[in-house]
């Protein structure tokens, strides 16, 4: 009954408002805190002047401050936000479609595929003529998409119905194989070891706007695809047969959802490496608060996942500054206890 109470007492609108506020504040915090502290008001003025052309007096913000905000801090928090949002939404969708609490964006092996692409680029020092420094994310994202296609083709070859169990198994098979390939390259490498490990642990540092721009179209496409399938995801929660019975075109919707979630995952991995935990746990935490309805779960996971990664990145770069910790370590270090606490309280209430 307690849970019912919490769910009833918060209207959907107020849940959105809270989540949006949390996201905005975390973005501001991310920009504000660093080797040089910048007050919120200054940040807002700088943003307004940059976007809306409002005049900015030199007293408010010197030029170097504008540079720091616009060229260093803002792209970093935006990238962190987009990556966190991508992983959380993809995780929510995978968990809903695969009906598996342990599913996360990495379950289908798309991330392993993308990683293989990235590690290959570092291992062989490849630089494609047209893309330059963009080579790594582009190769990586192509590998991610190819992996999805492989997994789906293999699943379909095994079983025409493409049941979720078969999809998960196929994903695990390909994921394991690609992980082994990565380990193989790590074992054979010499000079690039540190670079590969650093990339694998994940980071959103020093990427600038270019990576954000690369991620953005995939992000938008993936999120729109998944939001359009929120009702179908609810239907899938009752099993594929039940979804079919209420009129869902199961095969088409399943492929749409898998594609959307994989686009988000592949793109996120290609720009930031494999950052763990966000995609697994943020959807669970959001579910504890708002229930399993995907019409609410997906947008809220987006906002909270983004905010979560911005804050994790903030911690990663400030705790032992000027050195930076790998962001993947931080997500788990703060995420696990947070989840444990929420889970504990929820189970206690149920008794």
């Amino acid at each position, binding site marked *: 009954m307690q849970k*019912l109470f919490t769910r009833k007492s918060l209207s959907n609108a107020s849940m959105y408002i809270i989540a949006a506020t949390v996201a905005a504040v975390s973005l501001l915090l991310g920009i504000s805190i660093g080797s040089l502290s910048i007050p919120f008001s200054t940040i807002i003025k700088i943003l307004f002047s940059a976007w809306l052309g409002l005049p900015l007096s030199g007293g408010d913000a010197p030029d170097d401050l504008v540079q720091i905000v616009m060229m260093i801090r803002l792209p970093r928090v935006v990238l962190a936000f987009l990556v966190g949002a991508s992983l959380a939404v993809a995780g929510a969708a995978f968990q809903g479609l695969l009906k598996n609490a342990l599913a996360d964006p990495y379950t289908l092996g798309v991330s392993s595929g993308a990683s293989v692409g990235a590690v290959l680029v570092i291992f062989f020092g490849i630089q494609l003529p047209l893309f330059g420094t963009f080579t790594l994310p582009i190769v990586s994202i192509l590998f991610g998409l190819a992996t999805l296609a492989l997994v789906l083709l293999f699943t379909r070859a095994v079983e025409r119905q493409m049941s979720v169990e078969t999809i998960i198994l196929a994903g695990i098979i390909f994921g394991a194989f690609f992980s082994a390939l990565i380990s193989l390259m790590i074992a054979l490498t010499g000079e690039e070891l540190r670079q590969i490990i650093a990339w694998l642990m994940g980071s959103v540092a020093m990427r600038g706007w270019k990576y954000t721009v690369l991620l953005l179209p995939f992000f938008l496409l993936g999120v729109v695809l998944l939001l359009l399938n929120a009702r179908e995801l609810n239907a899938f*929660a009752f099993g594929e047969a039940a979804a079919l019975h209420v009129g869902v075109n199961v095969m088409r919707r399943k492929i749409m959802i898998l594609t959307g979630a994989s686009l988000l995952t592949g793109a996120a991995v290609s720009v930031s490496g494999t950052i763990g935990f966000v995609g697994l746990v943020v959807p669970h935490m959001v579910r504890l608060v708002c*229930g399993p*309805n995907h019409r609410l779960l997906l947008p809220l996971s987006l906002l909270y996942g983004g905010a979560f990664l911005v804050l994790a990145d903030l911690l990663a770069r400030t705790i032992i500054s000027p050195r930076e910790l790998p962001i993947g370590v931080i997500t788990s270090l703060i995420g696990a206890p947070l989840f444990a606490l929420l889970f504990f309280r929820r189970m206690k209430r149920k008794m």
Partner: protein
Amino acid sequence: MIDVLEVNNVSYRYQRKQVLYDITFTVEKGEIFGILGPNGSGKTTLLKLLSKELSVQSGSITVNGRPLPSFSHKEWARFAAVLPQTIDAAFGYTVKETVELGRYAHQHRLLPMWTEEDEQAVDAAIHEVGLTEKAGESIERLSGGERQRAYLARALAQNPELLLLDEPTNHMDITQQLHLLNQLVRSAKEKKLTVIAIFHDMNIASLYCDRLLMLKEGKAVALGTPEELMEPALLHSVFQSPVNKQAHPTVSKPLLAFLPERGLSAIEQRGLPELLTWTTMDDCIAITAAEPLKVLSSALVGSGFQWATHFVNRQVSKDYNREDAELEMKQYLRKRGLPVSSTIGMMTAVDIHDAVCIYEKQDAFSLWAVVTAGVGNAVDAAHAWKRKQFEQKIGTINMMIFIDGTLTDAAYVQAVMTATEAKVKALYEENVLDPETNTYATGTSTDCIVIAATQTGTAFSYAGTITPIGQVIGRVVYEATKEALRRYRKRRDFS
């Protein structure tokens, strides 16, 4: 009335195994159509074809002439709703959110809007299955029966014309089953829904369905009303199990009982005398059967048809007269340590030591008759109406006939007739008169009869006077009654 659904020569095979062969049937609007068959008979496959979970391989399924494959999934969901055996309980969804999914097929724009009509359909469906108060509860907190009702509400929210049910009550106890099915039939009748349902319980199917299709190994073996289909021979061949058919006590539908396979019973191994144990106590005769016998009797305790292991003929004093005789008799039985629910209990004022017992062994069967007779109460049935009043005395001629054989209901009734006729003849020859009318008595006012059969061994369809068993019943009862009367008179004259 239009034919709503036509299934024509539908066959289906999974990779190597053919599961349906040329199924053809038509279901009319408003009909409740049942599909019956043992496991593996193809009934679930047939339903999956109807729900579009599987696509038709050969033959055709049409709705009002339009072939099934031409319906999109959404179109079909607006026409037909499915209630399966079980649905994975999606964790955390409320009843209302679950039922809302039923409106999926009715929202067909790119950005679906939740309309007033949707809201009303959902509320009405939840109300219809009686879950309005639980609309906000999580689905996994409901009981199995309530959960299935929530899924029924979802199916109803689809506003379908056709409901497809796959053993919808499989995991419920009998109360929940009836509750759900009553609800279902009521909704179906109110909304003129057509229902196609798989049932595993033939009695439930027979109670609720207008027509039934019986499948066996993928082939349709029978199609018709429950009355037509519930034939023991047909069911035996379909379910490979012997079946017995009876009338429902209050509804004009047949009831069926499967018969368990029994090993060679004690009776067949040993015969009637070894099966029955006779004990004479100071005030009663108790006969105990090693295995239950099927009994038709007019006894004070255990009247009508029932299965019994104990048969008691109790001697009471001549002035025993109690309103609550049955209750008192039950207490008496309980005091004697007898299982009341499987005991046939009679009373007599006659000294039970004068009971006559005759055993007759034939090739095909054996028969054992136990008679006590007293005629202090003798009555001529033909002239009983002339008597002003009956004194309720415990009188009487009590007959117990044990038969080693299988009797039909008709044979039981004829056994009663034959025994009664033989008794009348014995009374006539012993010159027993009705003291008031001074005519030959045909019995006493409180006579009692028990016909008990093992229901194993030779089958007897009839037990009239022309049949071998009837002839033995007649002769044995005649002889036993005469002997019992002689003993009765001897004791009376002696005292």
